[in-house]
């Protein structure tokens, strides 16, 4: 039988670990995010995760002064997102965004072609043969960029 305090400490540790993991995943999305609204969405999510961090730290250490900071952080994050949304609206779409969308569509098409050729190869050798060279050629494509 585990004592309640141990269980609670375990819950706090698990919560901190999963918040850390989601923080890192969101940062990856911000760095990679193909377009500007994706990055803004990632920043919004980061604010939410930071508020969660503050709450968990408040539970763990009993130092709850930071809850005020969390409220202020929520306000700043809200205003930042609203301002960024206005900025997206006034800026319009740039060439980078169109390029990113085309690249994303190409990646999706490549993945689909690979899946189709794999399915064809699995169903039999006859239909698998003509489909096989297509994904190989598509896979070579990113090397040229």
């Amino acid at each position: 039988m585990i004592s309640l305090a141990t269980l609670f400490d375990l819950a706090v540790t698990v919560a901190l670990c999963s918040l850390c993991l989601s923080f890192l995943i969101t940062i990856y999305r911000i760095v990679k995010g193909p377009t500007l609204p994706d990055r803004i969405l990632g920043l919004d999510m980061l604010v939410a995760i930071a508020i969660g961090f503050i709450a968990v730290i408040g539970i763990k250490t009993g130092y709850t002064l930071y809850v005020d900071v969390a409220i202020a952080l929520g306000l700043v994050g809200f205003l930042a997102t609203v301002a960024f949304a206005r900025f997206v609206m006034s800026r319009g779409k740039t060439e980078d965004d169109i390029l990113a969308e085309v690249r994303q569509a190409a990646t999706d098409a490549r993945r689909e072609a690979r899946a189709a050729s794999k399915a064809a190869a699995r169903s039999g050798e006859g239909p698998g043969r003509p489909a096989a060279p297509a994904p190989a050629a598509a896979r070579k494509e990113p090397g040229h960029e």
Partner: protein
Amino acid sequence: MNEIATLIAALLLLIGSAFTLVAAIGLLRLPDLYTRMHAASKAGTMGSCLVLIALAVHAHDLGTMSRALAGVVFFLLTAPVSSHLLAKAAYSVGYRLHPTSVRDEMAPKDKK
């Protein structure tokens, strides 16, 4: 009584952090901006609100409790507004839905 509060706080912590993790994975895996927004603004808000409620349950003094609950209310009020504004701005500028999307109710009528 105190033990029950601790247990509830631990449970809320686990559920809230799991929601946040699911939101982050959705942000990573979903195909376009609008579906990512669906993950981040619903599950993410839910996650941080649950963790704040866990703090409110765990806290012993009334001040901390009320501040945490005020944070929850404030966050619940602002998160939908900001993500709706962002989605509206992105759609009106012309960021497209992913081709696998089944329905676009804001599409111009004359095209169809």
